[in-house]
């Protein structure tokens, strides 16, 4: 799958400190799909998502999104009320309040479903080859053969911890018809966010501070100097009338959009992703996607709602940190070679010992057998 931003135009960027926000505009909103927000708790608390009889996902989940489809432009009388609690609460043994969600995506009515934004994508990343080796080669520990990779754990920063993100969102002037935003920290793409309708965007714009952000973004926002604005510059040669001046001014926006789409967002848009369908909503599909995990490059995981033609109606991405990319890369590498260590090592032109070292360094020490069986 590719990320196809058809119908979304790039608008002029606005910067604040090291952060840059690039609006995505729609000339026509996507018909037949609306998103709303449900807030789960005012104060931070842990949530548990039951994925199956034995597997569950724990995280801080401040809010969920509700998707309505096949409506006449999202009838307001049936929207989710702000602050509605849709799931049971129970108290954890330690006395910490915990919220239990039954699934990542849950049906709420005939034409509506609630899903947990970005958690759906991150869960996809966490459960990558979660079952462990298919064949019990002797290099793998008993534990991984029996229980798989469980428990898998990853950390990310909450948007409120990213320096100046709150201010950047506050002073950002939302454009007419804006349906999305690309967020950069020191001009490294941090997150992409798109929704079907401008009104949805207006409502969901502040929720960006409740999203996950990777290590890199946190560091860049904290330490990098303010980014430079891409200021318009006209060449005044040959401008002899107001109409020519207007044409030159309009060309500026196109130049910026082209530069942005090819240079700045290139690493997000020009890659192939492996996608996985999570839920079907009429003609729309909720999918999550993951990259091919190339160490040293930009890698984004994310989730999207796409229509029948593959055009994006909703998009949310998360930029993996370098260590997370390496972990994904190693798991993919091993799985591609049927979890045979020597074959995988040979494929990347190294020794099994070296690969063991890499697996250990990536934090997967427990999957290796300490002493191989004779």
């Amino acid at each position: 799958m590719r990320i196809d931003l058809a119908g979304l135009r790039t608008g002029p960027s606005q910067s604040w400190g090291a952060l840059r926000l690039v609006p995505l505009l729609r000339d026509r909103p996507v018909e037949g799909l609306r998103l709303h927000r449900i807030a789960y708790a005012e104060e931070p608390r842990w949530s548990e998502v039951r994925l199956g009889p034995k597997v569950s996902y724990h995280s801080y989940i401040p809010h969920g999104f509700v998707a309505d489809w096949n409506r006449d432009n999202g009838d307001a009388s049936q929207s989710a009320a702000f602050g509605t609690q849709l799931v049971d609460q129970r108290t954890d043994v330690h006395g910490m309040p915990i919220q239990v969600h039954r699934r990542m995506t849950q049906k709420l009515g005939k034409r509506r479903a609630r899903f947990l934004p970005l958690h759906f994508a991150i869960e996809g990343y966490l459960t990558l080859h979660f079952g462990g080796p298919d064949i019990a080669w002797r290099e793998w520990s008993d534990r991984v053969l029996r229980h798989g990779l469980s428990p898998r754990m990853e950390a990310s920063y909450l948007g409120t911890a990213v320096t100046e993100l709150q201010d950047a969102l506050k002073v950002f002037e939302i454009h007419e018809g804006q349906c999305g935003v690309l967020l950069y920290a020191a001009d490294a793409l941090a997150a992409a966010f798109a929704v079907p309708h401008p009104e949805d965007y207006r409502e969901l714009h502040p929720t960006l501070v409740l999203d996950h952000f990777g290590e890199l973004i946190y560091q860049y926002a904290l330490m990098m100097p303010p980014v430079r604005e891409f200021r318009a510059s006209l060449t005044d040669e040959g401008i002899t009338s107001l109409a020519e001046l207007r044409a030159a001014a309009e060309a500026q926006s196109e130049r910026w959009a082209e530069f942005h789409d090819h240079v700045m967002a290139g690493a997000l848009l020009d890659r192939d992703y492996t996608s996985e369908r999570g839920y079907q909503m009429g003609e729309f599909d909720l999918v999550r996607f993951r990259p091919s995990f190339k160490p040293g490059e930009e890698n984004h995981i994310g989730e999207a709602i796409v229509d029948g033609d593959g055009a994006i109606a909703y998009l949310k991405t998360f930029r993996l940190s370098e260590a997370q990319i390496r972990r994904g890369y190693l798991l993919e590498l091993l799985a591609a070679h049927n979890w045979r260590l020597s074959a995988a090592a040979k494929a990347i032109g190294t020794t099994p010992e070296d690969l063991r070292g890499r697996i250990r360094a990536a934090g997967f020490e427990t999957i290796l057998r300490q002493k191989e069986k004779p």
Partner: protein
Amino acid sequence: MVAAEDVLLFVNAATASTGQREFSEDAGRQTMSLAFLHEYMRVNYRELYAATLALGINDHNAALAIRGLLSDARDVPIEQKAIEGRLIARTLLTLPPPRVFRLFKALQRDGVNNRRTRAIIRDWMTSLDNPAYHAVKYRSGFKAGLKHAHVDLGDGELRDFLFGPLQRKPYTTPILETWRQAHYDGNVLYKLPYTVAEGFAAKRGIKREVFLERIGKQMTPLEKLRTDREPVDPLALISGKAKYCGTDQIPWLTRLAVRILAMPLDERAARRAELTDGMRRFARWEADQLAGTWGRVTAVLDDSFSSFGSPVKRRRPLAVALATHFLLEALAAPGQYTPLWMSGRDDPLLAYPSGATPLGTRLLDALETTPARIVVVSDGWDNSPPGLAGEVLRVWRTRLDPAGRVDIVHVNPVFDAEGLDVRALSPLVPSVGIRDAEDLVLLVELAQFAQGRVGVPELMAYLDGRVRRFLGED
């Protein structure tokens, strides 16, 4: 040349900034930048600094300047002190009384008690129309002023009222007697000034609604605006039926704009005729003899999201734009005025802050109307795309209109503390700070110096003229 630039920069800051939080900057930064500018001007160009009091800098900065001039007067020649003294005395008369009393308290706190300070405080206090009213309404400030400057008003009753013993009964001064009775009689307190009566009402546990209902007449028009209780009646204000205890120079046009923008859209639509009429009347009042003399005018007015201002200056930039809209309508030749709002909406009364700032595109639209004058009211955060306005103006000025047929001026209601000036659009177009739309005419006059078309001697002559006019010597 440097001096001229510095003066204009200071005037821009001192006109636009009130040391309060702005859309993208907090109060601390604004205050710090202002404090620096004040000190820089005071140390380097003391004469010019004092002269800016005559240029209509805002009340906050006028008070700061007076405080600075009075507290640091060592090695200042006698003649300079004399002219400063007159400027300060004149400025104090134009400031609202609460601000003057706050200044007195600040001087007391700072321990500034030289002869000149005492004389200025004494002159101001003894020239008050109705000292008893001020003593009741601004009791602590009044007392601070008297004590600090050793003023004797020669009124034994007033002295007893302020400093005790509180044993006189009855007082012969009516307002003091009312005040005394208000301690015992729940009906008398409605004859007191609003802020004083408020305290008595709280003590008696009178319900807020009942209190506001009955105190109505005692409120000054500004208090009425603030309490949001009684709808503004612009007609009563113009005809002088409403009572105001301070000076006459209240920027009602901008005030009414602020008030209008605070109303819900439905209410504004319902009262459209009344509100439009009020704004037009004030605008004509302000334009006065200049009405209809500006020829073909196009305005570029900023109603982008940043015109929201901040919680403490709610919709101030938008209000300035709205008031300027009506003022320009009055100044332009009849039927020759074109307003261009940033958002593309065209109903000024229903303006609300939203959207980005495509200043460059709007400027092109404005140039296409072939005006004689373009007035841009914006905070200068040109972001759609960034910097286009500057480029458009550069190409226009250098290639298409080198003779300057079209007069372009940018007025900016927001002080950019980081840049120590209001944000300019282009070095080729003057940008001046603005606080109240009423100052527009004078600011446009001042803007010609910012452009560098007129030299330093002319600026000095202009300043001299303004100072003389301010002191009433002409």
